[in-house]
């Protein structure tokens, strides 16, 4: 064991030399990417791509560690409490990491949003209003007109309750005055068949789900400009509604990681994300590669937090 570790350290050291020596021997062992969801989910695929394209960029391998459970709470609480040595990096999703601490029952322990130090933003996933190609409404205006005339009759799938999709639904209800019957599914793997079979009439959720489906139409997309992955779908702005709704995925580290280590991680992930092959693979998975620095990611988190808080207050979910 001792010899093995010595050799690993030595190998890592030799490899690290050309890249510039950082923080006295960091990294000397693989860096773990903590995934707060089950293998096979959307987060897992994003992280596997980092693992795949991280070869040759990082001095030591990136490895995936799963810590699933309770919609990410367990993984993120583990991340917040991990040793701040730079060997544990966690994938974090927005708006999950601002919603969970906000909605947590009093007395229930768990991480706070501020415990997760933003390392960098990786990708985003625009929210889309989806319907079947053979559904009676072909435009967002038709859907809203019908829903206003028949409040609570249009069944809308979302992934989760008080989740990103649910916020998206609230935004639409608030802006249009329509009222929908929400059906919260446990994951997109359940919501997609529900839409395709007609169990629900529409699905307000991730564009990555939309891009995976055949015979569906997008009625509106939550990006400011047209979304490059589905350029035919009009934005809410074009339709006259002030709605923007996007889910972000990024990386975070525990607080108090030494600055050189943080800088090493940030700059290397920046290099990884600049690889066009990586970006192509991300787009293939239905996500938009959008690297941003830790500081920018922190701004996004703060913005999302404020937006979610005001929306939830308006709907009387929190005080």
């Amino acid at each position, binding site marked *: 064991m001792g010899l093995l570790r010595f050799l690993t350290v030595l190998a890592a050291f030799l490899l690290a030399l050309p890249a510039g020596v950082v923080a006295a021997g960091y990294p000397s062992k693989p860096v773990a990417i903590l995934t707060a969801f*089950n*293998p*096979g*989910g959307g987060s*897992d*695929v994003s992280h*596997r*791509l980092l*693992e*795949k394209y991280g*070869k040759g960029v990082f001095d030591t391998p990136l*490895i*995936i*560690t*799963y*810590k*699933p*459970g*309770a*919609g990410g*709470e*367990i993984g993120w*609480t583990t991340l917040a409490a991990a040793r701040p040595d730079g060997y544990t990096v966690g994938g974090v999703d927005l708006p999950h990491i601002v919603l969970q601490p906000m909605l947590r*029952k009093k*007395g*229930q*322990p*768990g991480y706070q949003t501020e415990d997760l130090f933003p390392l960098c933003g990786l990708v985003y996933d625009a929210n889309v209003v989806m319907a079947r190609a053979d559904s009676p409404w072909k435009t967002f205006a038709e859907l809203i007109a019908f829903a206003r005339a028949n409040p*609570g*009759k249009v*069944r809308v799938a979302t992934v*989760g*309750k*008080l*989740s990103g999709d649910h916020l998206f639904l609230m935004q639409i209800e608030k802006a249009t005055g329509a009222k929908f*019957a*929400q*059906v*919260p*599914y*446990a994951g997109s*793997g*359940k919501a*997609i*068949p*529900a839409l*395709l*079979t007609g*169990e*629900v009439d529409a699905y307000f959720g991730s564009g990555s789900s939309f891009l*995976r*489906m*055949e015979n569906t139409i997008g009625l509106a997309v939550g990006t400011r400009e047209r979304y490059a992955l589905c350029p035919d779908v009009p934005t809410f702005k074009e339709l006259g509604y002030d709605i923007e709704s996007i889910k972000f995925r990024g990386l975070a580290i525990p607080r108090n990681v030494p600055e050189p280590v943080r800088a090493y991680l940030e700059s290397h992930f920046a290099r990884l994300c600049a690889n066009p092959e990586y970006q192509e*693979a991300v787009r*293939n*998975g239905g996500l938009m590669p959008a690297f941003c620095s830790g500081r920018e990611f922190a701004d996004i988190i703060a913005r999302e937090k404020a937006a979610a808080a005001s929306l939830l207050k308006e709907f009387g979910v929190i005080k």
Partner: protein
Amino acid sequence: MFDFSTVLSNLSDPVTLVLMAASASFGIVMGAVPGLSGTLGIALLLPFTFGVEPHQALLMLGSVYCGSEYGGSIPSILINTPGTAAALCTTFDGHPMAMKGQAQKALFTALIASIFGGLFGVTALLFLSSPLAAVSMSFGAPEQFWLCVFALTIIASLSSGNVLKGILGALLGLLLSCVGMDPVTAAPRFTFNTMELMGGVNVVPALIGLFAIPQALMLLRPAGARPPMAPYVPAPGVLWETIRDFCRRIWVAGLSGVIGVVVGIMPGAGGNIATFVAYNETRRFSRTPEKFGTGIMEGIMAPEVCNNAVVGGAQIPMLTLGIPGSAPAAVMLGALMTHGLKPGFALFTEQADIVYTYSVGLILSNLMILLLGCFFVRLFVTALKIPAHYLLVSIMAMSVVGAYSINSSTMDVMSMLGCGILGYLLIRARFGVAPLALGLILGGTLEEGFKLSLHLGEAEGNVVAFFFSRPQSLALIALTALSLIYSFWKEFSARKRAAA
């Protein structure tokens, strides 16, 4: 259509074959070690496939999946501990058969049944994927609920003679499955304001606890009590005898294969539920239902054919629609996307070479597992020669390591130990642990189907009508009712006969 010569040349590449054989062996071991599973095996192997061609990568991962479904049966038979949740039903007859001194026959039965099931599922995947994908789309939330209710009727067969204890056990299991976050609203339940209980009682560590720990504790009991360890009786020529007996009971394999494929294609059901249904149905159609649970071949064939047929079935919606039909299929889906393949019907035309190489290759990997299995059976059966006191320690150690390795969580180890003590008490009180395990496995899926149906029914305006009016649901309700009436009638006539 695809180019058959490309498929053949892909599959005759020796490197591919070696990779497949290695992956299949890895899969068998992952399945055979309680706690490790196919899902974990696929996830662990995935990074090693980045360097190879996509079709090789898929074949490696597919071989792990097939291998693990077979491997799960080995500890079920030898030490009465299911290697994977889907191998739970294999303990019902597999272990009693081993106790009768026919461990080798039981293992060969499981092997042949697994291969038959695997080939059955792959055949469905190759030739029927588009009609079956359409079938998979006709199952909705209420059917998910009713299928679980149907699977619960197996309690009546499991606890023959003491249905009340069976029902109590299952209720306890359902109650345990409620711990943690509500699957639909995410509200915490029974968490006592701790982080650890938020994730609930994980099924796999609980199964290890319920089955392995009582087994180890039984080994500790003083001599004179019934030996809990199966004897080691080498039996040359048993393979041919098993094949002959298997062919005589081929109807069991056919029935279980169909059940495996059908339940496999249902999103969110998977092998765990399918094996219960297959075991129960086989028992119902058998001419000697009273012999089930005493160690007969049919009782091993049904679950083993079924859980391997699920492999093919679960990949139909995964490849054609991007919707996984089981937990390992979900990881396979992730692997597919990491390798730049986009699931959908287009996959079968645009990437036909890869998809058909993969599907045809799965046939090959099943045949490899058959060969590997013949070797592994001879190896594993010697475990019975290990003296009880060594075996006891290794079962305990493996249980702890297995429970921890799933999510590297100490909470899982604690729940494994808790379930172990509970399991021992239940067995001593003659309750049996199977109904509890059944409740725990089905609980989450059952509840999710129920709650989603409530939401949907409310939107329709009539919740009750929503549950009872869909033709697919009615079919499942009718099956459930028939199953219950049949078992009560059996019980009743058995009592009458006993009284006479």
